[in-house]
């Protein structure tokens, strides 16, 4: 399975070269953005690119003809995504630090949480939808979410005082703990869901 995870580094050689300038670009030009958003972008960069790359080629036929089980192929995706997320956030952290772009551990924690939620929602699409459209669908929905979500949260925060009161009354620890539980829980559910679909798939 480690080989399946390593495979993404081979197929994404060119994209990986773009990774560093991509982060530097944000660090230099997007100074008004939340650092959490940059960490989120960095963390999903490799996993999403790997999915998009794989669905263009006849990868399912190739991987399923090699001595891998279908369970392993899905597991490599979900475990690999976490590994690449940790690596990418590390690299992004160093780049942002070198570029004097201020951030805190809190930004990273939020980004990791959002990474789990975003991955949990988008990965199954690659197993459900027809190839060719998924990359586009994920890309568009990501942009839409990034534009639409903050005003909605703002609106909710201003108007639903009971919720915000409840949230602000929670201790930071409980808040983070429950956030983490929900995010990781979603990710695991998503994994089980993708696996169930992939096991039954015809290529």
């Amino acid at each position, binding site marked *: 399975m480690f080989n399946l995870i390593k495979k993404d580094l*081979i*197929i994404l050689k060119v994209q990986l070269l773009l990774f560093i300038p991509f982060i530097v670009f944000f660090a230099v030009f997007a100074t008004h953005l939340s650092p959490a958003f940059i960490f989120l972008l960095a963390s999903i960069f490799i996993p999403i690119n790997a999915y998009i790359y794989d669905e263009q*080629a006849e990868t399912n036929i*190739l991987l399923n003809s090699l001595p891998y089980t279908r369970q392993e192929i899905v597991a490599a995706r979900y475990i690999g995504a976490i590994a690449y997320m940790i690596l990418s956030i590390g690299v992004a952290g160093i780049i942002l630090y070198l570029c004097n772009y201020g951030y805190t551990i809190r930004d990273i924690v939020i980004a990791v949480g959002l990474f789990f939620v975003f991955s949990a929602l988008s990965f199954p699409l690659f197993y459900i939808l027809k190839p060719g459209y998924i990359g586009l669908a994920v890309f568009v929905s990501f942009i839409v979410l990034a534009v639409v979500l903050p005003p909605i949260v703002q609106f909710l925060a201003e108007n639903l005082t009971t919720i915000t009161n409840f949230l602000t009354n929670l201790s930071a620890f409980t808040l983070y703990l429950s956030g983490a539980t929900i995010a990781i829980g979603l990710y695991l559910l998503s994994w089980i869901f993708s696996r169930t679909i992939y096991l*039954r798939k*015809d290529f």
Partner: protein
Amino acid sequence: MENVIEFRGISKKFKEFSIENLDLQIKRGYITGFIGANGAGKSTIIKLMMNLLQADKGEVKVFGMDYFSHAKEIKERIGFVYDRNVFYEALSLKDISRIVAPAYKCWNNKQFKAYVDKFELPLNKPIKKFSKGMQMKASLAIALSHDAELIIMDEPTAGLDPAFRRELLDIFQEVMVDERRTIFFSTHITSDLDRIADYIVLIEKGEVLFNKPIYELKERYAIVKGSTNLLDRDTEESFIKIERSSTGFQALTNNVEEVKELFGDHVVMEEASLEEIMFYVKGAHSQHD
């Protein structure tokens, strides 16, 4: 004799096509040619063998094992070649071997390099810039470099020029020097099989019309030529198809013994090609329907 692949009561439904209750056995240690018209179900059956498709009903066994609990052990021992490129197009053969090699326990890099040299393949050029023949050779080099016992190929000779087709058939024969090995390949160029196949499986609309050793086919079927006045209502019964001309008749029989007895030295018999056999057996089959 041992079967390397065994289908028992396989059913698989698609929107426009279905396979029902299919039985098929492929013998270990031989080259089996898999023939049938386009759309007869060749690729579907190959995908069922590779577990790329899962049967709705029935049992697929490869090396006597099922995919449910032995998927890895089975695939470890199979080399595959498909009718189109399944490797990452933008990658070079070197990168592809880096992805494929660690998947196999028995990957032999020396062997791979030897095939790359033999086929004169460039290691650093992206696969998409390979010609069809080179892509085929690249797949074959990979399929033959992990000591596979079963080589499954879907139309490996399609789109190749005749010279390379010949070369390829020679390679198959070299591969078969190892007695444990089995080659199963589909083709619609039946002249490929006249030269190298031991067994022929003919399918039509998802149904196996025959699965026989090639020598048996050649013994049973023959082209018969003779004078038209030998033909009457009774003697015509010995033939599947008769063509008459001013100089005489030419016909295909599936009962060489009977024809010999009936006509003796009055007719000339020639070996029937697989193409002729395939054509007439299909014709006879659809008449029965």
